[in-house]
């Protein structure tokens, strides 16, 4: 059983590395978004550093959402989803493997790139690590909330914008606690650990709920 799990994980990682169009595009999109913000707000470094964590979090959220519709669509089109459904591996674990691969190729690089992009919005040095840390523990939640939306819209020919519309309202808690943990590292009355631990809890809960819901949605689409 764990062999099948690892096989799906490896396959998705190899696909992401060789076929392109996944993680690295999300990174470029993230960079573009962060670069666009100062043009809209003006080059005021004080303002930028104050709202820096918010910019990075919004950028990561949008960059994650943008590629999500392909999570199950490719497998649905070439029939490998039917093979996965027919295999002995529970569909929940298959979804977990695919979600994990999505996070490893999208969320993890975004979190690692965040300190670099932080330089662009004049993020203070002491806030770099907390922002990267919140993104590291928060982006799995985005991947797995998104997996539910991707599973619901897997068979759609004219999906497109529907996925972000479904998923975005559900990411409100993650965004709130991600940004508030990052901001508390910049100073404030709330200790860093409180929102950070709630963010971890959200990620863990989403990991379970998202996996089960996505697997249920894939079964219904059959």
């Amino acid at each position, binding site marked *: 059983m764990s062999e099948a799990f690892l096989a799906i994980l490896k396959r998705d990682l190899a696909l992401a590395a060789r076929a392109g169009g996944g993680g690295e595009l999300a990174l470029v999109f993230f960079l573009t978004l962060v670069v666009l913000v100062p043009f809209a707000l003006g080059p005021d470094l004080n303002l930028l550093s104050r709202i820096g964590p918010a910019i990075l979090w919004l950028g990561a959220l949008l960059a994650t959402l943008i590629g999500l519709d392909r999570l199950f669509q490719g497998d649905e089109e070439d029939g490998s989803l039917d093979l996965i459904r027919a295999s002995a591996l529970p569909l929940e674990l298959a979804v977990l493997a695919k979600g994990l691969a999505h996070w490893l190729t999208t969320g993890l690089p975004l979190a690692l790139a965040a300190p670099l992009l932080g330089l662009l919005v004049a993020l203070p040095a002491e806030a770099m690590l907390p922002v990267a840390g919140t993104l590291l523990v928060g982006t799995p939640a985005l991947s797995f909330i998104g997996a539910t939306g991707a599973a619901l819209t897997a068979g*759609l020919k004219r999906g497109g914008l529907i996925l972000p*519309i479904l998923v975005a309202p*559900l990411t409100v808690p993650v965004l709130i*606690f991600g940004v508030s943990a990052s901001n508390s590292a910049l100073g404030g009355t709330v200790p860093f650990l409180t*929102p950070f631990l709630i963010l971890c809890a959200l990620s863990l809960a989403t990991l379970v709920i998202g996996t089960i*819901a996505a697997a249920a949605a894939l079964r219904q689409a059959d």
Partner: protein
Amino acid sequence: MASLIELANPTRFMRLSSRLLPWFVGAAALLLAVGFYLAFFVAPADYQQGETIRIMFVHVPAAWLALMFYSMMAVSALGTLVWRHPLADVAQKAAAPIGACFALICLITGALWGKPMWGTYWVWDARLTSVLVLFLIYLGIMALWRTLDDPSRAGRAVAILTLVGFVNVPIIKFSVDWWNTLHQPASVFRAGGPTIHPAMLWPLLILAVGFTLLALALHLVAMRAEIMRRRVRTLTIFEAERLDRLAAEVAI
């Protein structure tokens, strides 16, 4: 033939609902008339808020109903996924626009009330924000209904989305509360407010029941329309198949 068997239960529903509907409409009209009369002519103006307090009589029932219809949709979603009740997804599809409407009414009346009271149409207060997010979830559910063509498949997909949303709504409420208290500790909202006077409470309760009956009547009408729509769809498919067979026979 499966669709014919499915029609058996809805037929009973159609008969029952056509008998219930006039009573619902009549009771709703009566209660709304009495409630609005009491609210506009009998209930006193608030000593602080003046005449604008009368917005409350629409605002508060709308907020209740927006939440009630979402809960009803979650129960229908369970009905679709667990019990496979043939009417559950009809009930859920019919409930979504009505719930969204009440959320919108709640937001608009809230904005109109906010302008004279707080001096602004919109405040990023925790309660307002949660209703706004609820409204967005309603819109997402309606969008998913429209993008999936096959009603039974759409019903199951929307049921899953509804349940995921239902789990999320309390989390969103909690996090928005946290977010708001973090950003503006001294809110324009007075916590609690004065306890409500019976002269205002009675019209409010009567109107709440009246609006609920009105919403249920609308829900019944929407469900009947949806059942009719599905029958037309099934009949169209049968007719197309018959014509196909006819054409094939002629060709032979």
